[in-house]
């Protein structure tokens, strides 16, 4: 039997909401796929769009950025700025042929453990659908 594709996903989670949401999901024993590997960031506004580009370049199958709901930013406005940037980088990458399923953005608050688990499932499904990444990836191992 062929082994099912097990995608590598990087999740940039805001410390003040989604990260805590993930924590709560864990404490509440909610089931969700282990694929998203979490990088804690102080705010979704801290996520330089180039992190997304670089993740793909490094051979990551999918990227997920999650921050506070608009209006709830710990720093008042960080996610508002981030929202604009993400929209554009997503469109640009899609335009160059990176599958849209690999680029995921969500708002998850600290209390939304259920939503966190749901989104993690959804993101993993989406990336699975896109398959192993073969675009824009720089060699990770020495070859030839």
């Amino acid at each position, binding site marked *: 039997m062929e082994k099912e594709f097990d995608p590598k996903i990087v999740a940039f989670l805001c410390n003040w909401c989604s990260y805590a949401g993930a924590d709560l999901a864990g404490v509440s024993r909610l089931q969700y796929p282990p694929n998203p590997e979490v990088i804690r960031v102080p705010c979704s506004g801290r996520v330089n769009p180039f992190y997304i580009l670089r993740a793909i370049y490094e051979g990551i199958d999918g990227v997920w950025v999650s921050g506070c709901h608009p209006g709830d930013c710990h720093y008042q406005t960080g996610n508002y700025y981030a929202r604009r940037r993400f929209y554009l980088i997503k469109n640009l990458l899609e335009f160059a042929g990176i599958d849209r399923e690999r680029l995921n953005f969500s708002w998850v608050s600290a209390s939304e453990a259920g939503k966190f688990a749901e989104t993690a499932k959804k993101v993993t499904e989406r990336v699975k659908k896109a398959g192993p990444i073969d675009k824009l990836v720089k*060699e*990770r*191992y*020495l070859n030839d």
Partner: protein
Amino acid sequence: MKRIEKNKFYEKLNGMIGEYRVFAPSGDRYRYIEDVSEIRFDGLLTKMSPKAHFLPQEEELFRWDEKENIKVKDVNDRYIVFGMRPCEVRAVTLLDPTFDTEKFPDPYYINRRKNTIIISIACNEPLETCFCTSFGYGPFTKGDADLMLVDMGDYFLGEGDEDILNLFGFTDSEEDYKELKEKAESRIGRIEIEGIPEKLEQIRETDFFKKITQRCITCGTCTFLCPTCYCFDIQDRNRLNGGKRVRVWDSCMFKIYTHETSGHNPRYEEHRRMRQRVMHKFAYYPSLYNQYGCVGCGRCVTYCPVNFDIREVIREAGGYNG
């Protein structure tokens, strides 16, 4: 003279692919071809010069694995570079003293150079931007090529090593290319370079370079397309199972090129970088190797986004009294 029908020549060349890796003009640049049908001359000169064979834009030097075993990349293939122009052949000759030195011989360059057969084609119809004759050679100079071809329409005239002529099956011919040569040479513009190296040294610290650099946007087009520019950067690449050290092209026109670890940059200002480029070719090269570092192919003139014209700069330098 010796001659060969074109289709016979290409057939023979095609047969040699495999035994040799053949680097030939294919549109805007030279490529390693699988079949002679890929050969495409878009005008007289390709945009990118064939120096990319002798000094690839990105070249692995050595690699290491997790246990830090080091493996040096060796260059053992045999190559043919087909279609080089006399200026490009001369440019390779000019790279030799830099890489093939007694003290620091560069094995990668030397091996490639040694294992390469150079087949050049003379220029029957030089371009308006050509100024090769200013440097003591011309559009029909064989130079370091192993074989020089002259395009006669349906056939080539050949001049070169007996072995290579026989390899391709050249036959004897009464013709010569004297007339074509004279016609071509007469079409080429010249720049006056007598005394330029000394003059440049004299005006080094004047405002001359500031003045000429105003227009320059300090991109690397001129240096990357130039057949004699060889500046490079060494980079280490980490991989999950080891790593490798590579050499990539760099350009003296870039600000980062001389950016030191401390943060200091001796060539921060644009005119200092331009001065380096101009003087390297027209003052340092002559004083080091007794040859100019420019071959007069005119690529930098044609492709410069702001039409920085080296011919004009040399002319202005000659008459500068400021």
